[in-house]
């Protein structure tokens, strides 16, 4: 049975049943090596790191009990508000851009492409800065555009729109051509056919990538701190960081609040992923 460890050399002499055993044993060996390597990494990390200090500073129960309330009512709340408002802007603008990119009118196609290329190429942080500094200069009379939340929604949303537009475009193009033809032969206008026949099918395809966009937005909402926010507008990252640096009276400095912020992000993203999985399963049955 030594062939199991020496590899394939001399395999010409093996008879089939023997070969089967060999393959099984080789797989077992490889698997054991992988597990051993994994265990080694964990052991090394456990020895090298000072985990007592880590637990004390990252999971300080006293700090957790003092900060968790505000993390929840203020930080989590702000993060969700920024995310949802930016997603609302991104989705509606993205849909318009996607339809423009698919239009028969060359000008619309050109505008759509230019938009996507521009906003996909700029960092979200830079766009946020541009909006914050630009709007008061360009639209000083329009009060609505000076609102902090509106600027956040537009800043983050206009970047998200570029990605969402590409996702929606791919979804629309994935719907077979015959669907549009069938809808038009029933006498539907182009718009009605889009609304009732094409988009519902397209969105079924793009819900998973669209969820990805939301998850990215949840994380991008941490950029809002750069706009100079008041304490009540702190989202999870900024709030966690403020606690951590001791900037907020009564809370000892330490990274516990950062770990807490991280957990709150997972509180948002994990159920989101799960919900999408359920939705996909449900729709698969219909197909």
């Amino acid at each position, binding site marked *: 049975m030594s062939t199991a460890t020496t590899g394939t050399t001399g395999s010409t002499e093996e008879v089939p049943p023997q070969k089967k055993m060999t393959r099984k044993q080789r797989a077992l060996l490889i698997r054991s090596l992988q597990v051993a390597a994994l265990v080694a990494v964990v052991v090394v990390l456990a020895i090298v790191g000072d985990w007592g200090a880590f637990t004390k500073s990252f999971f300080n129960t006293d700090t957790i009990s003092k900060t968790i309330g505000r993390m929840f009512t203020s930080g989590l709340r702000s993060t969700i508000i920024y995310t949802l408002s930016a997603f609302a802007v991104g989705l509606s603008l993205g849909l318009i851009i996607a339809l423009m990119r698919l239009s028969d009118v060359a000008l619309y196609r050109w505008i759509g492409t230019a938009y996507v290329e521009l906003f996909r190429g700029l960092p979200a942080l830079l766009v946020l800065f541009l909006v914050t500094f630009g709007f008061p200069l360009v639209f000083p009379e329009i009060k609505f555009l000076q609102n902090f939340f509106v600027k956040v929604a537009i800043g983050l949303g206009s970047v998200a729109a570029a990605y969402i537009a590409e996702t929606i475009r791919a979804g629309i193009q994935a719907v077979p051509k015959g669907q549009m033809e069938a809808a*038009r*032969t*029933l006498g*539907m206008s182009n718009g009605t056919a889009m609304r009732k026949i094409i988009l519902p099918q397209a969105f079924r395809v793009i819900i998973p990538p669209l969820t990805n966009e939301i998850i990215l937005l949840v994380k991008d909402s941490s950029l809002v701190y750069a706009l100079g926010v008041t304490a009540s507008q702190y989202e999870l990252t900024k709030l966690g960081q403020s606690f951590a640096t001791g900037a907020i009276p009564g809370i000892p400095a330490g990274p516990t609040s950062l770990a807490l912020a991280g957990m709150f992000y997972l509180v948002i993203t994990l159920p989101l992923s799960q919900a999408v999985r359920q939705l996909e399963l449900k729709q698969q049955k219909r197909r």
Partner: protein
Amino acid sequence: MTTETKPGGVGAISVQGLVKSFGPIEVLKDINLEIKPGEVVCVIGPSGSGKSTLLRCTNLLETPTRGTVRVNGHEVTDPECDLDVVRRSIGMVFQQFNLFPHLSVMQNLTVGQTQVLKRSKSEAEKIARSNLERVGLEHKEAAYPSQLSGGQQQRVAIARSLSMTPDLMLFDEPTSALDPELVGEVLSVMKGLANEGMTMMVVTHEMSFARDVADRVIFMDGGYIVEEGHPEDVIGNPQHKRTKSFLDRVLNPTKGDAGDDYPAPAAPAPTAGSIMDPLKPI
């Protein structure tokens, strides 16, 4: 704008000087054709002969390059013509069924009625049910298209068209995508329709259907109407060499040397709809 009877009559098709090019390839070359109300016309011919394109030019899924097409007295090739209105009265059945997969059978049949004809939901459902009954699928109204066989899907597609109470029906190779044992159920529904006096233009390879049901058979080849007439004459006693050769091949597919004198088909015409966007608003 209404679909009232105008010169040409309800259910009539009139094609004059129709030319259709896909880029440099001329698929239809000067087609002239009159179909009277209540008439059943089968269009046969080799693939690439332009039969499907002719059908699709009738409801302007393809935009003709030249010539005029009149349906129910409306000149659909007129840029002023409101196609959405004319298309309501033209049913169309596709080779690939094209049912809406995200809608149930019942919703497939009602969406056009409620959205386009503005019928109430209850009225639309009543009409849908009677048409499902007509194609023998009244027990499938809650099913989704993916749960049906090909033959059932095509019958639902026919019922969907009928629910719009069309004046005429276009069939684009309705049985070509079906397993052989499912062809019969679709053809018998079509035969029933023909017997009820529906104007029908059918692109098909089913010679027995053409012979039994059609009032007139049109043989197309190379973008021309080569021969047309009563099915017994065109299929039973073709005059033209190309018709003979084609029918010989279709009716005796295993006789290998049948088409010796048959000219090799030119570069295959593009599949209808693959190049130009047929849905551009006119």
